[in-house]
């Protein structure tokens, strides 16, 4: 055997040909070619590749021949075969043996009687022919087989075969039994016609297996049936099909196999009575009602079979298929009980049948419940078509909402199986943070392309369609958050120590049974589990963030540095930076500014801050556009990384920069105005000697105080009404936050409020006002410069005059005098020009402020309307701008109407 191990199929086939025909290789060339062709064509590929099925079939075959001992022996051998495990294709070998056996069984059981049988059988050949038609291959076989087939058919077709048995049968059969049985049954079942044919009939109908001696009875059920089918109408001319035959037929139909009379009709997609069979209407009706079961069975079966091999269908789908198979198994069990009932009847003969036999009516009653079950299953299968994962569970769950307790139990059972994988996913996810969802069935989706820095925001999402309907949206969100928190801890915080409290309750939902228990108590235990896991995980995450990453400290640092909360530091920084920042932006160097920043930190209370925080503080220069000064590009920066970057995202930092820029600018205006005021105070006294300037100086003072008022009100508003209020809100929310999402949301709300209240959305007007202030400063500076220059010259002139007079000379020469006069005149001539310049400035400024006020009035935010009121406290602008009046009135009216 070992030597032949590696031979090719062709060689093996050839030796097989030689062996069977007993000829040499050359002689069997023709047969060999045929064999290769048949094997090569691989015809009939659709045979069950299931060892179990094949072995069952063999057992059934043996049992059918009443060889129980052999069947037992076979199962013993089969078991042995399984344990050895040498063969890979056991089913294949078994199948081959089985298919070869079918032809050999009949002759082998009665080898000795060929001649006699043949002689007896020949005259009755006519009756048996239909049998050959149904199994044409046996006709083509050898003589021995032919006679075997004949004997079988003869045995079932007529009374004379009984004689054959008694005369020639190898096993002696009790004569009395054979003699008494047939007539008796004949009398009982049909009307005795008196003729030999007539009383032979019932025997052929139901007795064959009963009449035959147990061990030699060769005829299997199908031939018996066939002969019955064909013989019956022919013999007594009665076209009605017997009920027993119908019952047998229907039992086949139940399994989705076409019966003799009831067949699947392809175009109408239902089981239909063969039109050629004559049957009374009530029977016809009953059987078609029963046949519905077959259709339903087919539907469920088809779905389960098609899906169970489809791996992409996922675990939920697989368990759905498994539950369907379970139901089908129950159904098959029932069918096998019915079959065995039928068998018993066959054995006992028709005598007992009137009392206990299967009738269509009985079947109808018995099959009532299974039918409803199957109907539900079929409907379910129809509804679940094309769904998978959580969607499938939702679909099943939807069917559980029925009033029928039986159906509800059925659906509950299926649902517990179906939801089991989902609960497994869920527990893996909320306790380990692992997502083992190869087929995308779970309602949490993960995007593998997202890097860890965006893990919290983008990596995980909910698959809305996959949320089973028994899990609420709120629960699903919490589930998502729990797993996300765990993953965040692992991947971003690199914190692998599992939170102490969050130990998964031991083997939760390990069995479908527990899943069922969970399902029944969704509001209670399940919710509780989710809640506690959510609470613990989130709390742990926040603890880690606060303890290890000082989230709250950083939040406060943002407030202090980027939002100018640390007053002394900012003031000092601005003092130090002023000389640097007035230079053009292109001449600034980051390292110089960083040095200044450090100086400022060291000199102020900021030095006592956490070094961790100070380390992150940095200077940043924005992009330079031509003509920018240092003021335009300077910005403070705060570095965030790791878990902090999840709260302080890039967008958040962008917002912070914008707010910082705005606040910095506003601060600078305050400084500028202070400088302006200082100049006015210092120079006021000096310039008193030049009365011609008083007008223009007065103008300056008025404009400056207008600006001071505006900026002070703005600063007050920004500090107290915007920053402090929002900060307080944020702080409260952060303290109360239950999970990281709450903090992130609160933080975003905080930034949004600041930005909208600082009018950063449309800050062009405010920018223009600030620009006017700068321009005013420049104009005033140049005014003072020329004025002081002039003053210095005059003083010089006077001094010289006095000195000369002391020396006893003429104070001034005529030429000098003329020159002095001329210069004074020239200076005085410039004054109206300056005045007009300041007038224009003031006009511009006021018009911009007016527009700004109009903007504030129309803003939906109430605090901005209050700001407008405060800015225009003495109604100066309101008197000039009719729109302000109108809108104020309008808002008042609106408010009244609101009340």
């Amino acid at each position, binding site marked *: *055997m*070992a030597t*032949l*191990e590696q*031979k090719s*199929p062709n060689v*093996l*086939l050839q*030796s*097989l*040909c030689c*062996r*069977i*025909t*007993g*000829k040499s290789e050359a002689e069997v060339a023709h*047969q060999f070619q*045929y*064999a290769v062709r*048949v*094997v090569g*064509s*691989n*015809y*009939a*590929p659709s*045979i069950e590749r299931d060892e179990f099925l094949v072995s069952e079939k*063999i057992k059934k*075959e*043996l049992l059918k021949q009443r060889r129980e001992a*052999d069947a037992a*022996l*076979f199962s013993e*051998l089969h078991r*042995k*075969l399984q344990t*050895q495990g*040498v*063969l*890979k*294709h056991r089913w*294949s*070998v078994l*199948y*081959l*043996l*089985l*298919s*070869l*056996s079918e*032809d*050999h*069984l009949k002759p*082998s059981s009665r080898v000795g009687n060929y001649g006699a049988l043949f002689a007896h059988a020949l005259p009755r050949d006519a009756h048996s022919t239909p049998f050959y038609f149904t199994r044409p*291959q046996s006709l*083509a*076989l*050898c*003589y*021995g087989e032919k006679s075997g087939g004949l004997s079988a058919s003869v045995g079932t077709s007529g009374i004379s075969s009984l004689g054959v048995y008694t005369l020639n049968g190898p096993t002696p059969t009790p004569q009395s039994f054979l003699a008494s049985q047939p007539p008796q049954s004949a009398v009982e079942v049909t009307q005795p016609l008196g003729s030999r044919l007539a009383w032979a009939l019932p025997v052929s109908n139901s007795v064959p297996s009963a009449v035959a001696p147990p061990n030699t009875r060769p005829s299997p059920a199908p031939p018996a049936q066939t002969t019955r089918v064909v013989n019956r109408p022919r013999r007594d001319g009665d076209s009605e099909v017997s009920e027993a035959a119908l019952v047998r037929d229907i039992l086949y139909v139940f399994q989705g196999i076409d019966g003799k009379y009831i067949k699947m009709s392809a175009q109408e997609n239902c089981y239909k009575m063969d039109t050629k069979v004559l049957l009374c209407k009530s029977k016809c009706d009953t059987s078609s009602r029963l046949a519905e079961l077959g259709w339903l069975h087919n539907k469920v079966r088809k779905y389960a079979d098609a899906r169970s091999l489809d791996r992409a269908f996922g675990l939920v789908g697989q368990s759905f298929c498994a539950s369907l198979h379970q139901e089908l198994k129950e159904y098959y069990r029932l069918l096998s009980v019915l079959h065995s009932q039928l068998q018993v009847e066959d054995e006992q003969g028709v005598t007992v049948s009137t009392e206990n036999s299967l009738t269509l009516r009985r079947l109808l009653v018995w099959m009532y419940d299974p039918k409803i079950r199957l109907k539900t299953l079929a409907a379910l299968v129809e509804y679940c078509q094309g769904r998978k994962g959580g969607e499938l569970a939702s679909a099943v769950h939807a069917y559980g909402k029925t009033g029928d307790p039986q159906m509800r139990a059925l659906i509950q059972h299926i649902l517990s199986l179906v939801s089991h994988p989902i609960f497994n996913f869920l527990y893996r996810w909320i306790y380990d943070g692992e997502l083992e969802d190869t087929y995308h069935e779970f309602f949490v989706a993960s995007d593998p392309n997202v890097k860890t820095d965006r893990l919290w925001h983008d990596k995980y999402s909910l698959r809305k369609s996959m949320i089973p309907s028994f899990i609420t949206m709120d629960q699903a969100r919490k589930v998502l958050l729990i797993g996300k928190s765990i993953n965040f801890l692992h991947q971003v915080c690199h914190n692998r120590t599992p939170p102490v409290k969050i130990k998964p309750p031991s083997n939760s939902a390990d069995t479908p049974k527990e899943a069922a228990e969970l399902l029944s108590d969704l509001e209670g235990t399940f919710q509780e589990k989710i809640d506690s896991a959510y609470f613990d995980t989130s709390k742990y995450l926040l603890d880690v963030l606060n303890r290890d990453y000082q989230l709250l400290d950083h939040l406060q640092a943002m407030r202090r540095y980027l939002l100018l909360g640390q007053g002394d530091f900012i003031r000092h920084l601005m003092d130090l930076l002023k000389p640097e920042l007035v230079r053009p932006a292109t001449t600034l160097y980051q390292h110089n500014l960083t040095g200044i920043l450090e100086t400022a930190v060291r000199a102020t209370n900021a030095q006592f801050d956490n070094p961790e925080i100070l380390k992150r503080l940095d200077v940043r220069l924005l992009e330079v556009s031509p003509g920018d000064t240092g003021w335009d590009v300077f910005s403070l920066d705060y570095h965030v990384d790791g878990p902090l970057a999840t709260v302080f995202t890039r967008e958040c930092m962008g917002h912070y920069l914008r707010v910082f820029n705005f606040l910095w600018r506003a601060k600078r205006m305050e400084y500028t105005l202070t400088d302006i005021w200082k100049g006015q105070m210092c120079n006021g006294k000096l310039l008193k000697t030049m009365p011609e300037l008083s007008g223009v100086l007065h103008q300056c003072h008025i404009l400056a105080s207008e600006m001071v008022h505006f900026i002070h009100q703005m600063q007050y508003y920004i500090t107290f009404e915007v920053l402090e209020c929002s900060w307080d809100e944020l702080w409260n929310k952060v303290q109360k936050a239950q999970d990281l999402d709450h903090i992130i949301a609160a933080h975003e709300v905080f930034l949004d409020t600041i930005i909208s209240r600082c009018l950063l959305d449309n800050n062009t007007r405010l920018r223009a006002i600030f620009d006017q202030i700068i321009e005013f400063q420049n104009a005033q500076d140049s005014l003072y410069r020329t004025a002081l220059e002039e003053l210095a010259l005059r003083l010089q002139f006077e001094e010289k005059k006095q000195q000369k007079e002391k020396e006893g000379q003429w104070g001034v020469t005529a030429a000098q005098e003329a020159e002095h006069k001329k210069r004074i005149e020239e200076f005085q001539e410039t004054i109206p020009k300056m005045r007009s310049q300041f007038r224009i400035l003031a006009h511009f400024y006021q018009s911009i402020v007016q527009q700004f006020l109009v903007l504030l009035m129309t803003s939906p935010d109430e605090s901005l309307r209050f700001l407008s009121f405060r800015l225009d406290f003495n109604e100066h602008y309101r008197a000039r701008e009719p729109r302000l009046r109108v809108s104020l009135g309008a808002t008042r009216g609106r408010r009244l109407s609101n009340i």
Partner: protein
Amino acid sequence: MASAANVNNLNAVRETMDVLLEISRLLNTGLDMESLSICVRLCEQGINPEALSAVIKELRKASESLKASENTTN
């Protein structure tokens, strides 16, 4: 070691073949040891058993008819 494993293997194979022969006898397939072992090997190579059984039946039929014709000529 290798030879022992071989012997073991051989024993297992022989036992398997015995069991199969017994089953074959139970089922009256009419196969002798040699044809059976050929068939088993073919099956192990993944040949469709249905096709194989058809071939065997056909071969039997052919040899039967041959014999019959010989008988008649004789």
